[in-house]
């Protein structure tokens, strides 16, 4: 009678082996070779050398692009937040009947599934180059994010409190104002700040497909091999994101 001290977990081992084999297979599929990687390293050194020192000479273009990115972020966040409120309420299965919540949930899922850059391309084609397309694309993304989390937060509220307010004879709006919103308000504000932060990051990017903001400037500099200007833009973007992260962390702490 032999006793085994451990039961080997064959499923896990098999899965890991499969993952390793897959990685090797995928590398061959993607035409990745050492030769290419090595040339890349040499190329990378030259590339970095050309980026240094960052060139801030065209700071006016830089500032203009950054400001436009911030404007895109602000407008898309505000629009997204305003639209998310009713969407979230309609998507919450404990407040809305199924024939309302199901299609709204589908719409929210659709907003979330498509990457905002793809949405931005579509808007650029539809409404032309410029900040409007960026605002529209990030509004769609914000709706998808905030409305989903808002709906989930509403589904977690205590219905007893809602019932109590309903029992006083309050109408639907009264129930919403006194029974529902107080329970979810602070979380909603949290989602909004988070989304403002992420809109700020993304607004520096949508310009790559022509939807306004600093991304356009960045892409143009790349195409012209203006790598020292690229470095300057990247540093500015990183600084902005850093700042935004600090501020939003501060605000979130103050709210608690």
């Amino acid at each position: 009678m032999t006793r085994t001290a451990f039961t080997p977990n064959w499923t896990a081992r098999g899965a890991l082996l499969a993952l390793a084999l897959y990685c090797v297979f995928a590398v061959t599929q993607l035409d990745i070779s050492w030769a290419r990687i090595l040339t890349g390293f040499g190329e990378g050194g030259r590339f970095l050398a050309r980026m240094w020192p960052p060139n801030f000479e065209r700071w006016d273009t830089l500032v203009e692009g950054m400001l436009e990115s911030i404007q895109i972020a602000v407008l898309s966040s505000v629009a997204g937040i305003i639209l998310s409120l009713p969407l979230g309420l309609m998507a919450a299965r404990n407040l809305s009947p199924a024939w309302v919540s199901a299609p709204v949930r589908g719409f929210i899922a659709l907003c979330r599934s498509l990457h905002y850059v793809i949405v931005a391309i579509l808007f650029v084609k539809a409404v032309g180059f410029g900040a409007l397309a960026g605002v529209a694309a990030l509004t769609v993304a914000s709706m998808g994010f905030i409305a989903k989390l808002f709906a989930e937060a509403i589904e977690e509220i205590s219905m007893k409190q809602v019932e109590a307010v309903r029992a006083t004879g309050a109408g639907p709006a009264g129930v919403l104002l006194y029974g529902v919103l107080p329970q979810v308000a602070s979380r909603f504000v949290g989602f909004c700040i988070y989304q403002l932060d992420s809109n700020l990051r993304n607004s520096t990017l949508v310009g790559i497909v022509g939807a306004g903001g600093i991304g356009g400037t960045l892409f143009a500099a790349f195409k012209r091999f203006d790598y020292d200007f690229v470095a300057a833009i990247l540093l500015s973007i990183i600084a902005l994101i850093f700042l935004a992260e600090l501020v939003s962390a501060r605000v979130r702490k103050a709210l608690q």
Partner: protein
Amino acid sequence: MSAGLSLRGLSKAYVPGKPVLRDITLDFAPEGVTAIIGPSGTGKSTLIRCINRLVEPSGGQVLLDGQDLVPLRGRELRLARRRIGMVFQEYNLVERLSVMENLLSGRLGYVPLWRAWLRKYPAEDIARAFELLDAVGLPDHATRRADALSGGQRQRVGIARALMQRPALLLADEPTSSLDPRTAVEVMELLTTLTQREQVPVIINIHNVELAKRYCGRIIGMHQGAVVFDGPPEALEASHLQLIYGGEGWQE
């Protein structure tokens, strides 16, 4: 016949064929405290909730001052509900609002929406709220948040909120079950004296037979969705309790 509450053949089945309330017919005087006692799951809560239609009755009539509440919809239902105050077992205060906002939510059926939104309530409502806060013994708690209060304090706020409605009827669903024995007595005392002062009739679901006998002028015993005892507390005897709660040895 026109004054007070009457139930006519009220019945309720959550699942068809399994009635929780069977053909309840009762008349309530427009004053005084009535207790409904009975084992858990016997439909006491359902009965109370059928009166203000938080639960939809399957059949029968709920007559308040001669008006049948069962067919009411939308706005009419809300107008009926605002005349019926309700106190809940787990207080059901809106936890993240202040005590004062919870009290004023009792006026939601009366004030226009913009006032509710901006918290611009009529001065008389606010004066009334302060009065009730004094009456329930929480004069300095107006700006505290509801989730900062103890259980007994919350139930006091719950009672005050219901009275803010200036109700024609007060329903209380197990108002003392979540409280410790001493606080339970205090809350019952408060509930009965205040409603007597305001001349509001009370229907109260209660587990504790002793409290029911001590504070209520009339006791209704329910068993499996039907009324099996109805009379003054003095008339309630051990045999009745056996009928209501079933079995023999529950008293030991």
